[in-house]
């Protein structure tokens, strides 16, 4: 009877793990399925820290289970030392070993904080592509200053090309996240943050806001497309055919609350627009849309 019970309790977790495995095969495990160098390094870092942590977790679990079986009051044969409350050796071990593990992890932390600093440009023979990103209520605006085009809720970048996103907000704080390309960075009004990323495989990857920004927050998703150089040029060209223009009027029309906005393209975006957007929060008098805008 007892054996059946034990078998039963072993089978249930195995079954759950198996069902979990079947389920996970059907979905895209975004963080563990990176498509760019940055996301790949971040994934490896997560796995490294996890492995190191197991050196503490496993002994804790083993001791917890072993002690609770061995020193159960029903087991009267076990040694009982009610006054054993101090041991220099034992206590040195658990101040010492975690300290060593943390020192190792600290070195990795310090180095990776620098090597994976989102502000740091990515080394590559190809020149860096600058894209300006604005979080708005409730959509993402991507401005391509080199091509003077813009898009809403569509980030298209060429493959193997380092990209520098300059990010600000014309709305509450948001946080840009494209799990398969790079980690998150905040977007804030009156501030410019940077995120350097690179796509090493073509494909379409989900992007979103991960910081609550009001009613339309859940709909602030977009697709990030990593495409070949040829397709990137084609994409720019097709955007240039769009009837929409992001001049002063166009921006005013865009800058109203809207939710679940489909991808939209602008054949022209004023080169001053991004500077205008983050500057308008810098002084109280500067609320006028005409200031700083060309066109």
């Amino acid at each position, binding site marked *: 009877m007892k054996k059946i019970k034990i078998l039963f309790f072993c089978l249930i977790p195995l079954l759950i793990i198996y069902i979990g495995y079947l389920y996970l095969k059907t979905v895209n495990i975004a963080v563990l399925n990176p498509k760019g160098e940055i996301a790949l390094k971040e994934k490896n870092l997560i796995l490294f820290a996890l492995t190191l942590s197991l050196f503490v977790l496993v002994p804790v679990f083993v001791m917890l289970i072993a002690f609770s079986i061995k*020193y159960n009051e029903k087991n009267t044969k076990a040694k009982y030392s009610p006054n054993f409350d101090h041991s220099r050796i034992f*206590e040195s071990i658990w101040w010492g070993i975690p300290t060593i593990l943390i020192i190792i992890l600290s070195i990795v932390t310090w180095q990776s904080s620098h090597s994976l600093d989102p502000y740091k440009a990515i080394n590559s023979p190809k020149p860096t592509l600058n894209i300006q990103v604005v979080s708005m209520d409730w959509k993402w605006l991507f401005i391509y200053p080199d091509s003077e085009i813009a898009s809403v809720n569509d980030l298209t970048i060429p493959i193997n090309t380092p990209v520098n996103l300059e990010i600000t907000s014309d709305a509450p704080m948001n946080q840009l996240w494209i799990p398969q390309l790079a980690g998150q960075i905040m977007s804030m009004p009156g501030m410019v943050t940077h995120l350097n990323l690179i796509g090493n495989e073509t494909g379409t990857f989900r992007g979103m806001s991960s910081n609550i920004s009001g009613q339309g927050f859940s709909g602030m998703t977009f697709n990030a497309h990593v495409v070949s150089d040829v397709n990137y040029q084609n994409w720019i060209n097709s955007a240039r055919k769009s009837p929409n223009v992001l001049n002063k009027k166009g921006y005013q029309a865009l800058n109203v609350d809207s939710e679940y906005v489909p991808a939209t393209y602008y054949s022209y975006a004023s080169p001053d627009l991004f500077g205008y957007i983050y500057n308008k929060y810098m002084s109280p008098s500067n609320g006028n849309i005409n200031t700083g805008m060309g066109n």
Partner: protein
Amino acid sequence: MNYFAGILGLLTIDAFKHDLVQYFGVAVMTLSAIFAVLALTYFKRWKWLFGEWLTSLDPKRIGVMYIAVAVLMLLKAGTDAGMMRLQQSISVGNNQGFLKASHYQQVFSAHGTTMIFFAAMGLMFGLINIGVPLLIGSRDVAFPFLNSVSFWLFVSAMLLLNTSLAIGDFSGAGWLAYPPLSELQFSPSTGVDYWIWSLQIAGIGSLLSGINFIVTIIKNRAKGMTLMKMPMFVWSVFGSMTLVIFAFPILTVTITLLYLDRLLGMHFFTGAGGGNPMMYVNLIWAWGHPEVYILILPAFGIFSEIVATFSRKRLFGYTSMVWAIWAIVLLSFTVWLHHFFTMGSGADVNGFFGIMTMIIAIPTGVKIFNWLFTMFRGRIKFASPMIWFMGFIILFSIGGIAGVLLAVPPADFQLNNSLFLVAHFHSMIVSGVLFGYFAGLTYWFPKIYGFSVKDKIGKYAAYFWIVGFIVAFVPLYILGILGATRRMNHYSSSLGFQPLFIVAGIGVLIIGAGLFIQLIQIITSIRDRKKLQDKTGDPWNGRTLEWSIPSPAPEYSYAILPIIKERDQFWNEKQDENNSKIQKKFKNFSMPKNSYLGLVIAFFAFSLGFAAVWHILWLFIFGLLGIISIIIIRSLDENRDRLVTFDDLSKVDQLALGKEQ
């Protein structure tokens, strides 16, 4: 600008218009209140309630009231959690779920705020009120009336928060209300003001309690109890309350500035006008991170008492434990930035705060190993508090590992604000804080009521909580890795998130069953209280002073104040048969008289908060003057104490002392 306008301020009939779900909530709340009033009237319990409880300055009674309010809030915020899980289980693809986005956002904001400020803090102050004076061999806290004021401020803050359900709305800006979203421009309704004033009042109450308990621990210890002879729970409360008095003023100032932004159009944290929302995020976490340790240190202390008691062994590494507590206290103020590595502070800053965060894992790990070695070569009795402890170690360690991942800034870039993060902090707060408090409630219950709760039912409750927690939060860890962010009220069906959200919802139901079993446990234990009566005063074979007095502990706790010679003195006395206790002679002592003024202050504080929310000038002045007058009245009252003579002692104490008299 409409600072303070009109007889009703901003309050109009629109404030009472809600959707169906909200009306239902209001109806449940109102009906329960009416039912409570009717029950009290029918059983003629008003005088008893007022005379013995509401006006009591006995820390044990105040503690019980804290816990009662906290349990109500736990149920309420748990309902919020259930609504969130239901919404996320069904709101996929074309289905928008049963909550509008704005309502959903209020629900998660209220869930977080209520759980931290009213459920967790309430249980914590309840247990501290019950535990600290008893464990240090004191009859009372240092400032008994202030203690009552703290409690009643807590209640009025709780009422203010729940008023938002019926009148107006609540903040939808998350439990920490980051600006600019929480500024007037983006949150024009009074919801954020409810959040601000509810926290303001609760925060003042907490600060007063913090001062009170620090002074109590320093001044009221029994004779001979030097600091290094204090029980570990007292040490942990000492650490926690130190954090309270350093951290809570930051909260008070920060949300005052936010309120000034909203009321007077200032620009501390607005995006526009030179304001700096990043300053708010720094300040709120400079309070918010220590707050986590404020909650968890007392839970650590409870576990320290419980593990030693149920292993029937001295606590391992006492000195290490004390150092670990103070290391945590100090370090908890040096890690706040890890909540927003994604703000782009630069590699040096991120690296520094990442390393500090990891360092804090060392003293926490030391505590876990010391508990494990308290079990080593013990005689462990697996009563329900030990089951909570086992669940705590397992879930807390897993959550801690997740925390270490989050502490590495580039790893955090991928995990921050995802459901992985949500699962992490629930691991810490549910299994660390809540399990600790539940264990403490079971542990001290007989001392307060004179009978134990049924242990077997308690074990089932713990198993349901542990299993429910795993079912509810493992899916969230996975969802975070899949790239699901927190606070979504809707997501696309193509992502395949739905099955995991449904499993998580089932987990919440299992946790709900655990809570239900706990209520059954209390009810059936009250029914069978005669059978469960604790006649010895020492039901667990305890180690600390509180078990040396009869259960239920009389109002004055100790008829004769104990004299301490060593740690675990009560346990050692029990072991040593020849130990002839040196009996001191009974001397009359004084105890504080009951006072209803705390209740009155709470009434004025509520008026003040409500007025500030709705910009009602006259009511604001009324509340303010009211509070000031009560403080003056109380200060001038010199007839605050009453004398306790031998005849006033409980029968049990009289009998025990009678031989010597």
